[in-house]
């Protein structure tokens, strides 16, 4: 029994655990294809995210943005380089709400998985329903919710996992322009209340500029970091603010290069 008490040899990804930091150094990742050369998704990506920072990753489609998030969440391992990240939870592109659970049970899924009982997990999720404008929809099934509401429930589920790092994969990609704008404002407010590290993947440069503290621009496949643009603007930000528009143009230029 004595030996069990010694610290086990752990992978480096646990070093940053408590704080909520993310460190990627020289990360590459390729995918095998049947009957063809492997596709490189990411090539030599280095990225450091401080605890509590919101970083938006923008890039053309197929540049390995989703791969980047899955690496940070530990769903994949890099072929080269190191990934050190605090425990991270993924909010996937599709909301992936479970159709057999009510909205509140979907939101509380992380709690149930962590061993919390049904009643207690609902009690803990309930106050957040009110805060997120979902009050009265606790017992509604996902297919009866609007797209924006489903996305909010999915975000709640992500938050309730209690992990310090949130990886958001194009959270509003499936929404119409108007709902999207509303949800961006809503998320900006929600993130301000929550002191979490956020890695936000999007193909919408404006969304990145409205929400993030820093924009990281990836090149077309294989993705590598071509620009890092700090966004030093106070919240709430208006998409029409000339400073924000200028940043947006800078990011777009980096994307085109």
């Amino acid at each position, binding site marked *: 029994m004595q030996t069990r008490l010694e610290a086990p040899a752990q992978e480096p990804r646990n070093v940053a655990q408590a704080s909520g930091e993310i460190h990627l150094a020289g990360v590459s990742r390729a995918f095998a294809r049947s009957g063809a050369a492997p596709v490189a998704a990411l090539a030599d990506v280095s990225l450091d995210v401080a605890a509590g920072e919101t970083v938006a990753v923008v890039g053309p489609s197929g540049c390995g943005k989703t791969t980047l998030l*899955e690496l940070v969440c530990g769903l994949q391992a890099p072929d080269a380089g190191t990934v050190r990240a605090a425990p991270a939870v993924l909010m996937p592109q599709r909301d*992936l709400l479970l159709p*057999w659970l009510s909205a509140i049970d979907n939101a509380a899924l992380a709690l149930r998985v962590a061993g919390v009982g049904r009643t207690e997990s609902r009690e803990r999720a309930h106050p957040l329903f009110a805060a997120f404008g979902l009050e009265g929809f606790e017992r509604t099934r996902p297919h009866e919710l609007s797209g924006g509401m489903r996305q909010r429930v999915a975000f709640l589920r992500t938050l309730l996992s209690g992990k310090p790092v949130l990886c958001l994969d194009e959270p509003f990609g499936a929404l119409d322009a108007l709902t999207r704008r509303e949800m961006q404002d809503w998320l900006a407010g929600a993130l301000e209340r929550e002191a979490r590290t956020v890695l936000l993947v999007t193909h919408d440069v404006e969304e990145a500029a409205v929400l993030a503290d820093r924009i990281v621009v990836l090149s077309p496949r294989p993705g590598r970091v071509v620009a890092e643009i700090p966004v030093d603007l106070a919240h709430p930000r208006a998409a029409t603010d000339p400073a924000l528009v200028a940043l947006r143009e800078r990011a777009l230029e980096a994307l085109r290069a």
Partner: protein
Amino acid sequence: MTRARLGRLVPPVLLVVALLAVWELYARLGSVDDFILPAPSEIARALWDDRSLLWSNLLVTAQEVGLGVIAALVLGFGLAVALHFSATLRRGTYPLLVASQAVPIVIVAPLLVVWFGFGIVPKLAIIALVCFFPVVVTTLDALGNVDPDQLKLLRTLDASRWQAFRYVEAPAALPAALSGAKIAVAVAVIGAVFAEYAGSSSGLGHLMLQAIPQLETPRAYAAVALLAAFAVALFSALALAERRLVPWAHRRTEGPRP
């Protein structure tokens, strides 16, 4: 019952009436002997005249089918889950399961009678043998076809293998498992008749076996009619259970809201 639901009953009722009319006409015109193909009116008379005989034998067969289907469902769901969790088991036993369906019941039925006698056990074994397969296949396929992104999501929430099964795979596979169960109840009745042919002293299958050499063909057909009605009743009961158990799979009329 609403007008719309009554309206939905019209086509099947009309179809049955038309079929019975053609049958009656064909039998009355005398191209086939009465003891080969009795007219529906004769079958109806047999249903009434032999009602107590038919009823007591129906109870026997219904009990066999009910218990046999329960055994098949327990076995089928259990096997599907076991095969889902173990690839080795799946590779090892799946071919055997398929092979088991190629074994004609008439070959194994006497053996089962030798082993288990004339009681209810060999009947349950035969019914379970014909019924478990659709349950295993539909359930196993559905368990394997769960959205991989949903399982990935559970992984980022640190769910265990068992939790992924409990929260995602099992509910996702439930509609297909119930479809398998519906197929099972439809064929269970045939299994019961085979089983009673192989050796029994009561039941509708036994009754048929006796009625035909006695040239009481209408009685045999009456037994068939009862078996068919019983299969439809079981099927409807499962369809009803399906609506209660998997309400999320029945929302085509509502559709997603914008």
